[in-house]
């Protein structure tokens, strides 16, 4: 097995190192000649191709230094030791010149999170308009592999997964490991597995590729009090890798502010850090069907009183306790409305659950719904009198944008990405750390008919932004401009 692997991989490595030209007879001899005086880049490539595993930075540097002292055989020897463990099952391909899109999460799970929606909608359009290589990772996160057509189809939501249950590794007869080299690599998702981030960092540094990522937010770094304890360390490892990418497209100006602050931190280490640009997410409202409207109305709307909708998981960052408090202040003062939460329970949502139960017990018209279908959610956006979303930190306040795209006024925070969305009209902004500011805005929208009508009108003249635009702009910035910047064009 090992001999076969080596027999296959030596010519692959020789071809990648040689570039265009004719192979000499003895691949091993040719490789050793090509590896003489190897720098970190070449050492990285040789280790990756021969072992079928992406090496870590420490390994690359150790082997390169040893080869400098004792000759290029050292590199082959180190790679062969790793190959012995890996077993040499995979077919290794060097993805020179390709545009590799890393969609490991999307290819394994469909969680329906905001991040997955961004990855899927963007990838659909990139795959249609451009030649791409969609990549996932081996289950042990030691190497990237080419996704099969059926896998890609499932990831994009074109077909339902049938081969493997959700969360399981797809059955692949012989994985095709791909090693990006003088290629373009784009990461349109968040990576929290240390195995991947520890291999991505050297990939960004040594693969001679143009590299890029979408930046969603830096919440685990800047608002760790709102993250489960295991997230920030793994996020810090991702940031350690992202230090070395060429470009980051953030999903809002506010996320850009966060990444720029982080880049300032990184520059203390003598690293330039990535070029950063904000490319705001789009929102395309779905027109709810009459059946969905009827069903949602019958089930979730209290006749004769307006419904206030709050969409999002009940983690502390979303500030749903403030919403409950503001609502109770208004109910006590005689304002009539129902309050509907749509979103899952999340880390530290117990306080919300308890307070909700208390208010329900005292007869308030408030309800929380879990796991609602998109079909009914769009109907609710349409049926709501207004929405509230007073989060204290968001990379992009999707429910605000969705509400406004549905023609429903929103109340949201007066800073960050939420303010950016609110600026185009149809929203009131408040200080989310001041319950009275929130209560006052909600009271106005519920009692001032003229104000409500004006905001509804404003929602109709908001600029439209589509996934097609977003996909085109991100491809241009992360791929086309990135490649031409490297070529000095």
């Amino acid at each position, binding site marked *: 097995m090992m001999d076969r692997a080596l027999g296959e991989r030596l010519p692959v490595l020789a071809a990648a190192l040689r570039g265009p030209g004719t192979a000499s007879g003895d691949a091993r001899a040719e490789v050793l000649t090509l590896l003489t005086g190897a720098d970190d880049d070449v050492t990285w490539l040789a280790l990756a191709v021969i072992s079928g595993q992406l090496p870590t*930075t*420490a390994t690359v*540097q*150790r082997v390169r*230094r040893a080869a*400098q*002292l004792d000759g290029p055989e050292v590199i082959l020897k180190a790679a062969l030791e790793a190959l012995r463990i890996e077993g040499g099952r995979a077919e290794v391909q060097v993805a020179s010149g390709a545009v590799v899109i890393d969609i490991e999460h999307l290819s394994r799970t469909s969680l329906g999170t905001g991040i997955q929606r961004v990855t899927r909608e963007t990838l659909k359009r990139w795959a249609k308009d451009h030649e791409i290589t969609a990549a996932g990772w081996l289950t042990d996160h030691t190497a990237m592999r080419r996704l099969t057509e059926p896998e890609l189809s499932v990831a994009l939501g074109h077909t339902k997964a049938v081969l493997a249950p959700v969360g399981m590794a797809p059955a692949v007869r012989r994985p095709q490991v791909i090693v990006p080299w003088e290629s373009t690599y784009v990461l349109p998702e968040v990576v929290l597995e*240390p195995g991947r*981030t*520890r291999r991505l*960092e050297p990939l960004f540094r040594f693969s001679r590729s143009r590299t890029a990522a979408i930046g969603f*937010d*830096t919440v*685990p*770094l*800047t*608002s*760790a*009090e709102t*993250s489960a*304890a295991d997230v*920030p*360390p*793994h996020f*810090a*490892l991702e*940031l*350690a890798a992202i*230090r070395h990418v060429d470009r980051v497209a953030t999903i809002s100006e*506010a*996320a850009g*502010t*966060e*990444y*720029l*602050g*982080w*880049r*300032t*931190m*990184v*520059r*203390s*280490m*003598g690293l330039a850090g990535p070029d950063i640009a904000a490319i705001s997410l789009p929102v395309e409202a779905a027109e709810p069907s009459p059946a969905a409207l009827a069903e949602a109305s019958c089930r979730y709307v209290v006749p004769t009183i307006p419904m206030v909708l709050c969409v999002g998981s009940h983690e502390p960052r979303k500030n749903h*306790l403030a919403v409950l*408090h503001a609502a*109770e*202040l208004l109910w*006590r003062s005689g304002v009539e409305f129902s309050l509907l939460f749509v979103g899952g329970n999340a880390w530290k949502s117990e*306080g919300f659950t308890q307070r909700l139960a208390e208010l329900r017990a005292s007869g308030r018209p408030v309800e929380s719904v879990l796991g609602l279908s998109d079909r009914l959610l769009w109907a609710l956006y349409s049926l709501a009198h207004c929405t509230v979303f007073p989060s*204290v*930190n968001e990379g992009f306040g999707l429910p605000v944008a969705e509400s406004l795209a549905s023609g429903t006024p929103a109340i949201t*925070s*007066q*800073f*960050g990405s939420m303010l950016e969305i609110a600026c185009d009209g149809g929203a009131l902004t408040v*200080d989310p*750390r001041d*319950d009275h500011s929130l209560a006052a805005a909600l009271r106005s929208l519920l009692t001032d008919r003229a104000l409500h009508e004006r905001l509804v009108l404003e929602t109709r003249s908001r600029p439209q932004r589509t996934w097609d635009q977003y996909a085109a702009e991100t491809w241009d910035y992360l791929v086309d401009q990135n490649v031409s910047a490297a070529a000095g064009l």
Partner: protein
Amino acid sequence: MASDGTVARGPRPVARVTAVAARREPTAVAALAQRLRAAGDVLLVESPAVDPDPARDAAQLLSALVGCARDSATAGPTWLLLTAVTGAYPTADDVVGLRRALELTHDATDAELMVMDHMAATVSADGLPPVQIEILEGGVVVDVDFSAQNDKQTGIQRVTRRVCALWDADHSTTLLAWSADHNGHRRLTRRETLRVLRHGMPVEPDDHLMPEPTSLLCVPWRCTVVLTEVPPEPAAAVLAALAEFSGSDVVAIGYDAIPVTSAELRPVVDAGVFVKYLTVLKHARRIAGISASSASEFRGFSEALAAQGLPGPSVVEVMLATQIAPGTGSAPVSGLPRVLCIGSHELHKNHLAVLHCAEMLWRSGLEFELHFVGGDGWDMSDFRSRTDALRSQGRPLVDHGRLPDDDMWRLCRDASFTVFPSLHEGFGLPVSESLACGTPVITTDYGSTREIAAAGGCVLVDPRDDAALEAQMRRLLTNPEDLARLRAEARAYEPKTWSAYASELWEALVTTTVGAADEA
């Protein structure tokens, strides 16, 4: 001032210290009454007359304090009320939750009952002891928890101890540590005070016999709370709430953000601890970075906070001091030239590059000794296997491990030059110490090491380029003129003194925050 455990030196007027009952284990009710009275003394315009029955006294105080918290536009009184009621600092959720609940209560009795319910729930859930509290109003307190309880004396503890001792001579400050359960601050024991202010000095026999103060909490109120070190991790949540709500200004020395910016070179848990520290700093008023480079790291963090609508701390640079004991510049010992590398064997110190360059030079026929001084780092495996291999080949390589300062400085004075190609430093102390010893340095061409090197005596290299490091080591080993010129520059180096650092730091963190000098 019954529990004052500080060394009697210089004026020590604490603005307001409330009376503390006799030192015996108080009953829960008596302790509650004491805590509420202490809070009443600072919160109420007029405290009710003392009722000899502690239960009745607590009841009348609670009623007045709940009214005060309810009527206040700011969260400070709620924070202090919670601290007094439970005998522990509250979290942000506690403060915000109580303010909401108080707003919804129908009348004063309702509110008092609710606060009592909260107390009962918290005290039983967290197993809180019936402590008494002392409130420090309007002064400057320094959180020195680690330096007070540990004898370790590396970078941060050295800064903490030097600064505290110098401030103690010139200003009125109170040193605080955390209670065993991290429920709140406490004063230092006499032993701990000496460990901070007179570290390394002989301890008088009497000092061991001094009675230890009781475990009462010492609560800053409208104070400046100075963090000279990273506070204990379990205290982060309540300290963040103190910074956000209590009305005290939290200010800090900023060292570096390596655990989050270079997470791949540190144990994974470090990043988790550090982000908790950042949850405190996001509500701090001021941070003094120990170099321009360090200040820029914390400024980057502060600027990122705009995305969540927070102003973030203002960040200034107060460059750290370097002071070494005077010693004779002994003539270089006969025999091979010595190259010295100072610093713990952490991965970001880049010692593997130093080993590699040395071996390249040895193989090319150059003769020199390579010495390391510094403690073990997190991951020693590669360093150990390389040094073992080189030694077994007979290379003149010595790893001294940790050495007393005087021994280290003697080695430094005798060295031909030092190498310090660290990937990341808040302040590259080995660079300034080497220069203070009159010994040239090869160091990193960016960040704080570059700032220090501006004074001369240094050669700058890209630490990620082994060839560059090797070339400069070769140059200093083979070019006596260059080395002599650098040595002359190094001899002219005038390091910043600790007293200059301490007074600049006071100016930057305390005077500026308070607005005007608070010294009599």
